[in-house]
């Protein structure tokens, strides 16, 4: 089959690779009809995620048709149309039983690597380094889906691929980002990052009852989409001081909750940018936590900082004093996608939301490498790319 492979930093190639096989009884093989490039894939592309091997198949947002099932998979049949969640989860361990699917205790065969880096291991993920399992990803014609009796959700024929594809990751992720804010009537939520994840967090914040949402980014087309498609007010951080603007907009108190939908590769202008960039050059910091620092400082006393942007290792100048002295709550995690797929599919079916509004580009799988380059540089007003392997 054809698959989009990570060769090295800023080097993706579509190559011929063997077709996947059933390895365990609870596996299924899915023929992929749609798959997407995620902001998380950019962290791989930019070489920020360790333990990638040249030739790894990437991609963790995908859906398609079941073409084969292992003996242990009773709930799926050949021909079923399914969306696959990006964390691989067994459904029966302590974490899974508590709905914490992205920290499943049993799905990472390379857990020891993750333990060395993070103390304990989270779940295995599709196409996201050996540290997180070494699973082949979904930028391919076919994929093997472990624990297929737990993860994939069947989707009805009347919904298009584009309407349901994002149940695999970014819609649940944005939703969880908003849910972690514990939104009360009248709340104002600020969201750093108007990428797909941020935009869906904004939509979700309104769905969950927020009164106002304030979106922060610098790309005019993304800020425009935040305004027009989600109803958020916007701040262009290249034009305004984010901290002062948020204060002004909230009567000096600050937003009730702040969502970091940017992560470890935040764009860092000005003096603080020079600081972080120089630190990176001296290899003393792995992420540029610019948005996270701002989110903490801006949040109102006793408010919540919800971190869904991805961080990999260590960050510096983390304003713990602000967190502690002002009774802030920090909530975070890779999304527990399995927990949200059913209720969010229901919302899509009821017409409460159609997450396909973020799609700006559709491409063939063969064009994935150009897609990565374009998405990285946000060229051609690129917000979300969907790939069609078949």
């Amino acid at each position, binding site marked *: 089959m054809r*698959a989009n*492979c990570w060769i090295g930093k800023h080097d993706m190639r579509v190559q011929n690779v063997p077709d*996947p096989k059933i390895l365990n009884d609870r596996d299924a093989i899915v023929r992929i009809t749609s798959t997407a490039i995620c902001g998380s894939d950019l962290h791989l592309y930019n070489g920020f995620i360790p333990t990638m*091997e040249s030739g790894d198949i990437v991609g963790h947002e995908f859906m398609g048709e079941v073409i084969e099932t292992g003996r242990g998979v009773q709930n799926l049949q050949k021909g079923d149309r399914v969306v696959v969640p990006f964390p691989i989860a067994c459904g029966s361990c302590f974490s899974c039983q508590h709905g914490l699917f992205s920290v499943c*205790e*049993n799905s990472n065969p390379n857990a020891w690597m993750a333990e060395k880096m993070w103390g304990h291991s989270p779940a295995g993920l599709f196409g996201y380094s050996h540290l997180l*399992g070494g699973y082949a990803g979904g930028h391919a014609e076919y994929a093997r889906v472990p624990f297929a009796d737990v993860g994939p959700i069947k989707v009805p024929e009347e919904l298009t691929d584009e309407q349901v594809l994002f149940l695999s990751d970014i819609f649940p992720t944005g939703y969880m980002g908003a849910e972690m804010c514990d939104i009360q009537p009248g709340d104002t939520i600020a969201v750093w990052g108007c990428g797909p994840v941020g935009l869906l967090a904004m939509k979700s914040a309104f769905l969950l009852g927020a009164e106002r949402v304030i979106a922060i980014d610098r790309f005019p087309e993304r800020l425009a989409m935040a305004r027009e498609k989600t109803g958020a007010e916007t701040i262009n951080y290249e034009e305004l001081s984010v901290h002062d603007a948020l204060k002004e907009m909230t009567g000096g108190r600050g937003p009730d909750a702040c969502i970091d939908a940017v992560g470890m590769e935040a764009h860092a202008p000005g003096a603080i940018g020079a600081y972080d960039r*120089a630190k990176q050059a001296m290899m003393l910091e*792995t992420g540029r936590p610019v948005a996270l620092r701002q989110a903490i400082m801006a949040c109102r006393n006793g408010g919540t900082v919800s971190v869904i942007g991805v961080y990999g290792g*260590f960050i510096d100048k983390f304003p713990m004093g602000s967190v502690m002295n002002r009774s802030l709550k920090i909530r975070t995690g890779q999304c527990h996608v399995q927990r949200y797929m059913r209720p969010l599919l229901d919302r899509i079916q009821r017409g409460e939301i159609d997450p396909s509004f973020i799609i700006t580009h559709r491409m063939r799988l063969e064009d994935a490498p150009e897609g990565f380059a374009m998405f990285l540089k946000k060229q051609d007003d690129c917000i979300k790319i969907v790939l069609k392997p078949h």
Partner: protein
Amino acid sequence: MELQTNRRHAESRPDESQHSQEEQLANGLGWFSIGLGLAEVAAPRAVARLAGLENKGRTRTTLRFYGFRELAAGIGILSQPRPAGWMWGRVAGDLMDLASLGSALSSDDNNRAKVATATAAVVAVMALDVRCGQQLSNGRDGGGMTKNSGTSVTKTVVIGRPPEEVHRFWRDFSNLPSFMKYLDSVQITGEGRSHWKTRALGGKTVEWDAELVEDEAPTRIAWRSLDGSEIHHSGSVRFERAPGGRGTLVRVEMQYVPPGGAVGASLAKLFGFAPGQQVAEDLRRLKQFMETGEVAKSDASIHRGMHAARPAE
């Protein structure tokens, strides 16, 4: 438990001299940190030039900050009796920061050749850090090698199944190879008797007969190799009810005393892990098997060695 095991064997540890070598290396790296730190604090302009960074006032101030940090790390390493933790801190920093240095390479403001040289230097330092961290950690993972008593390991895992079930699974020794990676087979040869066979290592399989020495359902099983075996192996496992109805706390203790040392050592290190890590991995697979009915496999984990995560031929 683990600590006790280590302490028990501490006196006969044969690699004491080797440890002092590693500590010398750690000390060297500690001084490297201090040297770099001092340079950054005292001569940020020169350091910026060396690293190929923009030579602005801001950069220099920043470099001074790093300098203080390096100093702290260096002092941390030098002041620890066994600085493994600090060393792994350095490795983690090296690793992640190398990745970040990549982004400096692509920034137009910085001198690429120089940043590349800085990268090469860090790679070299990292190699030292890794070696040193590994060596310092060896024998801290609950599995130390000693001349007289061989390898002794204690590890635990919580399995979300009742003790009766986990005990029943383990008590049938022919199940052990399903999660103990170095075992090829265990055959039941009689009442309380079994025949164990390892996978081939370096073309050689090791076999021995073992007998059950304790059997208290559902709390404890212990076994040991029969006298005259090529390898002296004994083990015990305890099954306790985990608090809060969370299944079973499994506690394993194993010893291998190799004949000449070599086989046992390579046996324990068959899969490239220190012995404690090997047993930990075995228990993880046991947990996967008991909780999910299968051992998790990925495209990259089914074959040994480093290779791409994609389906096998």
